[in-house]
């Protein structure tokens, strides 16, 4: 048994610097001679730009330079890219309207960047920006997810007639129609998946720096994937060749998807640093972030279920629209299609599923991946629909789930919507969750609450997600423009310390600790002797970064494989030194041993020998430094059952989550303390969506109404309960470490659990998120 290996709730290595104010976030970085950039943005949702007069701004005190879109084009800087090519109805691939870094012809959402003012101080840049004179002709705007494809709606892009970027379908329509034609009962729900602003607590930021002596460009940036940032800016935007371009994502204060993408301001800092030959820094205000960060969710959906007389699901039909915003961001259309549609089977044996998804352009900020990315939308509609179906059948919500679950002995299970689940025991996780939540005792608690004038409700959510993104060939065939393998380099230093370079990025997930535990488990090196390095393209090998709960299921396996290469080479060295045959060498807990003897050589001694190879096997290279790339064979499929119990005050519409019970199957847990923290955070995200958070654009003006923390309600400590977290693991056959990923589960599972509980409390069929006191009060009044 290795100390501090897999399964230990080791305190985090990264905590000391964060707790003592020694973190190094992008806005903490200042370079000699640095200038400050401020972005001039459109105040209009939709407008023709007639002229941009920068003359007054250029001569303002302290202003170094003012640039508009043409300046970037003059330097052959390309526009921002969409990495998705998803094939829709009729074999038609999604349209990709062009997007300049600084828009020139039209502004298409409130916050669309038009010019940048660079000055000696931020205050001077802001003052200069006031002097940029832009002549607009305002145009009618459209922000509605449901109606932007209607005849007569204002048009955003010539490339997207009727504002449709993609019409996509999935599944067997005829089979689903047949299921509905012969159904004993059907259920139907229409719902909105509310738009969210991701709101990592650290605003986005970038510092560009150019060295004219070496022609090297460096960009410090709030990124979840610095190599991908560099790739996009190099290959598609022509900012600098990859080998002359260093991208550093230092400490990053949360990502949740919003820091995957390459943004306008980041490209500007990189390009302008070379153009003016001085460092350029930009840090987002929170209000700017609300306007310009990629948003999440925003679907309007009709979902229907066909059932036989026993409540077995025989077919499901979903008709939905997803809001893409004004431009297609990096993943964009792949989220409401691939990452949403492929999850629609959930935990159930529904034999026929058909989805129609229309991706529409609107005069709003771009919408892209946000914690869960498509999977929360799928889970929400499915788990709401299942509860409506239970009502139609007169069955308990737990019972209708049990009647339709895929059974553990049916694994691996091929769903009708592409995914093939490799493991899971949905009956077991539901049983455990119901027990932990004292589901059987709910009736008594409900009656007791009623005596106090309160309405108590309980709601279930049996969710599944596809994580560990992703097998490269599979996603490539579906239109994703990159491979989604991961890399690791494990380097023994001559004195026995180990440096691990991972291509993933940690922005709160604790990789410096959990990945060190993996290495400790594998190599038997004390955990304090293992250092995990990430976030700098000049330090580590190419990697794809962190999103889609992929870091451990994909990146962790790469680390383990690199460790195995270290062991394989170490056996050759140890065999030589111990004068034994290589096949007789066994490795365990840090020691190479000649089988059946007490002849032993510690791995640190082997490492030293590899770097000081005086007595060394013939034909073996010196050094102990191995690299591995791992491309997963399948997605991983974390799943579980969550139970939410609420108490509603019908007179005020306020509610309290009195108990939240999570039972998750993440496979093997490397650091249970970190895993529980990921669950807690995901739940807060999901509960926030269900109860509080809503990004609103005014239907008439296209103005962002919820543009600050004063208007957009983030979950606070007093909005949430403490959580009851437990696990019901199964073994994934496709993952060599037996891990599944845990970062998104809470955000996926919680929204339907919460809404199902409220709906149960009120005795109604449905209510839309966010279930604010006003929404709940109105529903309670209507129901009474």
């Amino acid at each position, binding site marked *: 048994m290795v100390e501090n290996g897999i399964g230990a709730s080791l305190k985090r290595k990264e905590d000391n610097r964060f707790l003592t*104010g020694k973190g190094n976030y992008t806005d903490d970085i200042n370079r000699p001679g640095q200038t400050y950039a401020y972005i001039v943005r459109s105040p209009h949702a939709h407008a023709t730009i007639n002229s941009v007069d920068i003359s007054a701004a250029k001569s303002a005190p302290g202003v170094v330079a003012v640039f508009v879109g043409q300046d970037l084009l003059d330097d052959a800087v390309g526009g921002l890219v969409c990495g998705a090519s998803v094939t829709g109805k009729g074999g038609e691939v999604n349209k990709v309207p062009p997007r300049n870094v600084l828009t020139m012809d039209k502004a298409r959402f409130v916050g669309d960047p038009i010019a940048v003012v660079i000055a000696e101080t931020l205050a001077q840049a802001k003052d200069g920006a006031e002097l940029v004179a832009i002549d607009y002709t305002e145009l009618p705007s459209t922000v509605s997810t449901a109606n932007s494809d209607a005849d007569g709606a204002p048009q955003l892009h010539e490339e997207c007639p009727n504002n449709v970027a993609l019409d996509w379908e999935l599944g067997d329509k005829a089979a689903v129609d047949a299921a509905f034609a012969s159904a004993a009962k059907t259920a139907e729900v229409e719902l909105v998946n509310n738009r969210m602003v991701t709101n990592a607590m650290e605003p986005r930021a970038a510092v560009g720096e150019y060295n004219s002596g070496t022609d090297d460009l460096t960009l410090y940036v709030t990124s979840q994937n610095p190599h991908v940032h560099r790739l996009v800016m190099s290959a598609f935007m022509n900012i600098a060749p990859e080998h002359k371009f260093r991208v550093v994502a230092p400490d990053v204060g949360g990502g949740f998807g919003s820091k995957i993408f390459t943004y306008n301001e980041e490209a500007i800092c990189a390009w302008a640093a070379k153009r003016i030959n001085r460092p350029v820094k930009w840090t987002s205000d929170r209000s700017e972030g609300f306007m310009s960060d990629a948003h999440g969710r925003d679907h309007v959906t009709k979902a229907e279920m066909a059932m036989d007389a026993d409540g077995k699901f025989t077919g499901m039909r979903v008709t939905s629209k997803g809001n893409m915003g004004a431009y297609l961001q990096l993943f964009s259309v792949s989220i409401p299609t691939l990452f949403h549609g492929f999850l629609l089977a959930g935990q159930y044996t529904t034999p026929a599923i058909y989805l129609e998804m229309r991706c529409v352009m609107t005069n709003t900020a771009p919408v892209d991946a946000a914690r869960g990315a498509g999977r929360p939308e799928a889970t929400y509609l499915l788990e709401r629909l299942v509860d409506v179906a239970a009502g139609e059948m007169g069955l308990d919500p737990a019972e209708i789930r049990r009647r339709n679950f895929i059974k553990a002995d049916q694994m691996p299970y091929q769903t009708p919507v592409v995914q093939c689940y490799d493991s899971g025991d949905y009956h077991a996780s539901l049983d455990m969750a119901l027990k932990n939540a004292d589901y059987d005792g709910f009736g008594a608690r409900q009656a007791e609450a009623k005596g106090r004038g309160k309405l108590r409700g309980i709601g279930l959510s049996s969710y599944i997600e596809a994580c560990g993104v992703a097998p490269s060939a599979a996603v490539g065939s579906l239109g994703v423009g990159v491979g989604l393998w991961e890399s690791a380099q494990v380097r023994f230093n001559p004195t026995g310390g180990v440096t691990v370079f991972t291509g993933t990025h940690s922005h709160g997930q604790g990789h410096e600790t959990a990945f060190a535990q993996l290495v400790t488990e594998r190599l038997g090196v004390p955990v304090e002797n293992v250092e995990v390095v990430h976030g700098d393209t000049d330090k580590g090998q190419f990697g794809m970064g962190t999103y889609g709960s992929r870091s451990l299921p994909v990146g962790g396996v790469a680390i383990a494989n690199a460790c195995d290469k270290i062991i394989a080479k170490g056996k050759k060295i140890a065999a030589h030194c111990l004068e034994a045959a290589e096949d007789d060498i066994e490795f365990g807990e840090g020691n190479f041993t000649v089988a059946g003897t007490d002849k032993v050589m510690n791995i640190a001694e082997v490492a030293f020998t590899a770097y000081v190879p005086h007595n060394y096997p013939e034909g073996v290279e010196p050094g102990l430094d191995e690299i591995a790339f791992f491309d997963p064979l399948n997605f991983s499929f974390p799943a579980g059952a969550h139970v939410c119990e609420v108490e509603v005050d019908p007179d005020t519409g306020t509610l309290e989550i009195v108990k939240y019970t999570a039972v998750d199957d993440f496979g093997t847990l490397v650091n249970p303390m970190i895993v529980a923290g990921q669950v807690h955070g995901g739940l807060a995200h999901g509960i926030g969506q269900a109860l509080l958070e809503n990004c609103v654009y005014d239907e008439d003006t296209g103005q962002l109404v919820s543009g*600050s923390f004063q208007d957009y309600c983030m979950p606070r400590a007093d909005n949430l309960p403490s959580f009851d977290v437990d696990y019901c693991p199964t073994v994934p056959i496709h993952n060599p470490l037996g891990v599944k990923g845990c970062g998104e589960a809470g955000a996926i599972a919680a929204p339907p659990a919460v809404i199902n509980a409220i709906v149960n409390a009120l005795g109604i069929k449905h209510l839309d998120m966010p279930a604010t006191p006003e929404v709940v009060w109105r529903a309670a009044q209507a129901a009474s």
Partner: protein
Amino acid sequence: MATVSMTVNGQAVSGEVEGRTLLVQFLRENLNLTGTHVGCDTSQCGACVVHVNGDSMKSCTMLALQADGAEVTTIEGLAQGGEMHPMQQAFQDNHGLQCGFCTPGMVMSAIDLVAKNPNPDEATIREQLEGNICRCTGYHNIVKAVQQAAKATGG
């Protein structure tokens, strides 16, 4: 520009600031004390909380000149002799932080909370931390950390 002087983490400091310079800007930019963070522009998030004359204060809500002559403590001033403050230690012990961005403000608020209410129950802790937003932890472990620190400091 005007001269402002104050004591920060026990050191007498002074600097030239504009009238509009916020205390948080003075700390971060003049003194290079970048542990205090800026997470919003509406005094909602609490990432910038420091102690001014012993009270927790959102340093984005105060002009640097208003702190003239004040005793200011930031996250950098908590650990003594290489030992973390019991609140910092409690945050580590309970995994009360993930990305670390809200953490300095959260710790500073929590210390003030316990100083003024040495034996807080969970509801009190949650209510008192309403001015500090965390996107990572769901607050579960932050609440546990504050409870541990309150016990450790004799609450």
